[in-house]
């Protein structure tokens, strides 16, 4: 086996094929991990001493919040690369990630709200963590709508890349908001710098759910990017040949 030519996969035509081969693997992994993760979340992880069963929201809330921040950073990176090197595929990857990021941001906000009412006593408060997460959701929505508003893909890529890059400043604000300011939202239970302040099985359940969300994101983003590739390259020879074959 020779050296893999990575540049080959920067071309939409060959990435289309590669993505098609990768999707089933990631999709299967995601389903398996979701089953294990949900089983641990509902049946293995113990009841919390203070919150009782209501704490189980974290098994979806925390992975969703993590993913919404992480996807935004990846989206911004793809946008930056696309802007600097004029690569077509990176812009397509960025726009294929946006709806999933928005979905996770919305899930984090909704589940948090449902937990907040019984635990805090309020559906919503304007503290730094909640507000910055809401801004993240709006950034995703802004990115998607701007992309849809401009017909010429080259121009819409450049315009939305700007939103992605400017908005990326918000991500560290979300992450550190609970440290920098007095917030109602509690601090991080799991961080890079200290041991988790959670029971072991709870951490395990959360991490497996996060991995499942990650695999889901990759599978869905690849699926979506294939459609974007076909749509944008519809006038090219290889796409018309592919369409002939399908007929």
């Amino acid at each position, binding site marked *: 086996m020779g050296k893999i030519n990575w540049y080959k996969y920067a071309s939409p035509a060959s990435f289309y094929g590669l993505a098609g081969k990768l999707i089933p693997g990631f999709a299967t992994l995601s389903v398996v991990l979701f089953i294990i993760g949900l089983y641990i979340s509902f049946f293995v992880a*113990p*009841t*919390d*001493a*203070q*919150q009782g069963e*209501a*704490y189980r929201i*974290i098994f979806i809330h925390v992975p969703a919040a993590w993913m919404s921040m992480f996807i935004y950073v990846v989206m911004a990176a793809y946008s*930056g690369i696309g*802007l*600097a*090197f*004029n690569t077509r595929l990176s812009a397509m990857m960025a726009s294929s990630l946006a709806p999933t990021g928005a979905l996770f941001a919305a899930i984090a906000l909704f589940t948090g709200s449902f937990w907040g009412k*019984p*635990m*805090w*006593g*309020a559906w919503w*408060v*304007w*503290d*730094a963590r909640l507000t910055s997460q809401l801004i993240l959701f709006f950034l995703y929505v802004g990115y998607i709508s701007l992309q849809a508003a401009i017909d010429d893909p080259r121009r819409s890529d450049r315009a939305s890349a700007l939103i992605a*890059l*400017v908005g*990326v*400043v918000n991500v*560290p*604000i979300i992450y550190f908001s609970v440290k*920098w*300011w*007095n*917030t*109602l939202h*509690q*601090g*991080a*239970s799991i961080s890079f710098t200290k041991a988790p*302040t*959670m*029971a072991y099985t*709870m951490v395990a359940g959360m991490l497996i759910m996060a991995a499942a969300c990650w695999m889901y994101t990759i599978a869905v983003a690849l699926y979506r990017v294939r459609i974007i590739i076909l749509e944008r390259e519809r006038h090219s020879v290889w796409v018309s040949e592919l369409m002939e074959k399908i007929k």
Partner: protein
Amino acid sequence: MKPRHKKLAFIITGVAGLAVIVALIMNAFRSNLVFFFTPTQVIAKEAPVDRTFRIGGLVEKGSLKRENDGLTVHFVVTDLKHDMNVTYKGILPDLFKEGKGVVAEGKLSPEGQFVASQVLAKHDENYMPPEVAAELKASKASKTKL
């Protein structure tokens, strides 16, 4: 430098510059971004006493008293340095407990009482099964006895 590298450098400096600007703005608005004030800050007159604001801290152990109407409660919020008396009429959230975090929104009365219109429980980042919590309590109690 190739033009595309120049472009990349421009983008990176742009984002970094923007981050610095945002950091400076955030720093300038620091006090406005605070969700609640501690009793120490209220006593030091850092809180906007003339309008509604929030205080936060721990509910002092043994300070919770209910009036006969069953709705009005009195408790003391402490940040372990200073205390503040709080009066509230309404339903307390599930997580409201003595020794736990709380955030109360309201106004300071002329007598120095904090009259709350809303009480929120502030949860900490510790998640553990009840058995572990009981063990932790027991080991803490035995330590204080020694």
